[in-house]
């Protein structure tokens, strides 16, 4: 079994997550041969005849796209590893600005650079937008998570290497959360840092924008258990993925409205910074953007003006 890991525009966290198999790593490399992974080894090009290629990161520039196409051709099975590869991830937030503005900010506008700073051109050019891996090539498996969590990888990687199939949880973060729904009165939306939430009750019910109900689980609801609202880093929950008319923003509005008896229009008015609080991990995904009720198109339009 020949395995490869390719990294596109991301943070290498997904590769580190694979190293976080810790001792199990030795068992995996006893069963399978890692033939290409630039972060940990010197092979410069993915060889032919790869059985499983894990691709992490989003596609942001020409070089990313070429590498993705190459590894797709050379691999029998391609796994989009992590939320960037699956839905664009945090890198997708760059969709909020035009490339020109992005470059101008970095090389000319931040305080430590001069207004006439050089904007690099002798470098791989940017694509006009960010893409998730599945927007451009056929993906065989999606493994979400920013990065995918250790316990989850410990389940799936040995199974993949052995060629086994697995029954996996399809539940949302809420179903892994230990909080109970207390009384919900005079609900108003709080910023995530306001006040100190009580540890027993649902954060959403307390007014915090917790995305647990619209987010795929498999992280053991880590954040709510640490007394912070879910930010949606595992990507959209299965019901949102399945139904073309369901979207993160729309589902949150509906859920809060049911919870609080506030009309949906009123709920929507309380939201702020929808791009960074609701679509932080999915904005660079055509699959999410193409949903009928998605707010992504508006956000991109509004901000890139």
């Amino acid at each position, binding site marked *: 079994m020949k395995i490869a890991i390719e990294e596109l525009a991301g943070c*290498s966290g997904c590769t580190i997550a694979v190293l976080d198999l810790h001792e199990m790593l030795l068992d995996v490399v006893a069963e399978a041969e890692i033939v290409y992974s630039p972060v940990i080894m010197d092979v410069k090009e993915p060889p032919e005849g790869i059985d499983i290629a894990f691709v992490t990161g989003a596609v942001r520039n020409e070089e990313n796209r070429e590498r993705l196409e190459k590894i797709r051709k050379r691999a029998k099975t391609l796994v989009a590893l992590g939320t960037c590869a699956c839905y664009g991830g945090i890198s997708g937030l760059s969709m909020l600005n035009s490339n020109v503005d*992005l470059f101008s900010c970095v090389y000319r506008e931040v305080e430590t650079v001069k207004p006439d700073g050089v904007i690099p051109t002798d*470098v791989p050019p940017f694509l006009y937008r960010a893409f998730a891996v599945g927007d451009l090539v056929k993906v065989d498996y999606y493994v979400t998570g920013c990065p995918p969590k250790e316990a989850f990888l410990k389940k799936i990687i040995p199974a993949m290497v052995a060629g086994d199939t697995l029954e996996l949880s399809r539940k949302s973060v809420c179903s892994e959360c230990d909080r109970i729904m207390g009384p919900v009165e005079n609900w108003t939306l709080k910023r995530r840092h306001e006040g100190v939430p009580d540890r027993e009750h649902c954060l959403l019910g307390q007014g915090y924008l917790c995305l647990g109900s619209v987010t795929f689980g498999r992280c053991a609801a880590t954040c709510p258990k640490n007394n912070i609202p879910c930010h949606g880093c595992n990507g959209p929950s299965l019901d949102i993925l399945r139904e073309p008319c369901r979207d993160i923003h729309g589902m949150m509005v509906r859920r809060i409205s049911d919870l609080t008896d506030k009309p949906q229009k009123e709920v929507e008015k309380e939201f702020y910074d929808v791009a960074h609080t609701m679509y932080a991990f999915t904005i660079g995904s055509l699959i999410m953007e193409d949903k009928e009720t998605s707010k992504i198109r508006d956000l991109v339009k509004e901000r890139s003006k």
Partner: protein
Amino acid sequence: MKEITISPVTRIEGHAGVRIFLNDRGEVDSAHFQVVELRGFEKFLIGAAIEEAPRITPRICGICPSAHHLAAAKATDQIFGVEPPATGKKLRELLNVGQFVHSHALHFFMLAAPDFILGHDCPAESRNVIGLARQSPEIAKKAIAVRKFGQRLTEAVGGKPIHPANALPGGMSAPLTEGKRAELAVMADEALGIAREGWDLARNLLDGVDTEIGAVRTGFVGMTNQGVYSTYDGSAAMLGPDGGRVGSFSGPEYTNFIEEYSEDWSYLKFARFKGGDYYRVGPLARLNIVEKMGTEHADAALAEYRERFGTGTQAALAYHLARYIEFIASCERAVQLLSDPGITAPDIRTPVGAVVNRRGVGIVEAPRGTLIHDYTVNEAGIIERCNLIVATCQNNYAMDRGVEDMARRVVENGALTEAAANRIEMIIRAYDPCISCATHAIGKMPLKIECVRRT
């Protein structure tokens, strides 16, 4: 013009390249370190609520996410005008310690050591941690064990081993439980044991290696708490290229001392002192700056190191030893903090109200060097301006010059063998560049080596 490309540079975090220009006699005319990606955090954070910064910016880097998390959290404290309670501060320091343990162990044992232990003539396919595991399974197992401790510590304190989320304006969101503390304390003792045993290996690693290679002369920047080694609290001291103290900064005044510029051929910016002197950050810089490490075994190692390299060294390969000494210091500090009875106290968070200051600058030491997060917000706490200065950008010049120095030594008859290319990469690896961090600005940097013959 002849062009040879080797890409990407491997066993570094992210994508980057090297370009070597040859004259018509096949000699090196010039060479550059090139970074080919960018992601754009400085721009796309504008418009975000400031409290999101500690959750978004860890995604700049999956290897040192805690440093970004903490730099952003420190900036939010200033913006809301609060100080975390004592335990909150200790937990944050512990989080950074976990980061250093994992990152330094990863770099030393898994990314850099194969060059020294397996050697350049080892085939490229096995000159890596897997090859190391075959040849020296004991080293590999120990490396896995200490890195695991670092990640477990980060997870227990920060909520997750990668992209921790528990630091927030005013402190931390969850206390460390007694059960976890006890479990981690046992692991910390074991990790310190491994770190101490490994000193023999580390100390001898550079024996017979020419430490003049990759030569460059620069100043240094690194944090210290009154002369003592510190990664979370203190001010950043600046040394000039002659070793003399230039000054220090701990907040917005960094802009009086540091400037950045860009070149056409790299997405990665270059940082230098205003006035033109270059400087470096990271283990070498920090050890040049501090008077002592403040822990027993690291101080003993520092004394040996100084016997060999003096009190201020410019040698790029000394980074490896300096990094190892920091690794020992981090394990010792973990043991100390985990046996502090205050560490499990429930008082970890100071509640915050409205925006008090429109600007917050968070500075911490990341494993690769001084990290600066600078945010300006409006009255509602929405980010209006953001500047992020990462270690790799501050070491960019030194890597760039080191690459040229090495290229001159190893390019023969206008050609570069695989082993020679690896020697060039070794110089880059000494800095443990984090290309993801470096390219926070828009993508990631593929490190490429290309030779261009000028006719």
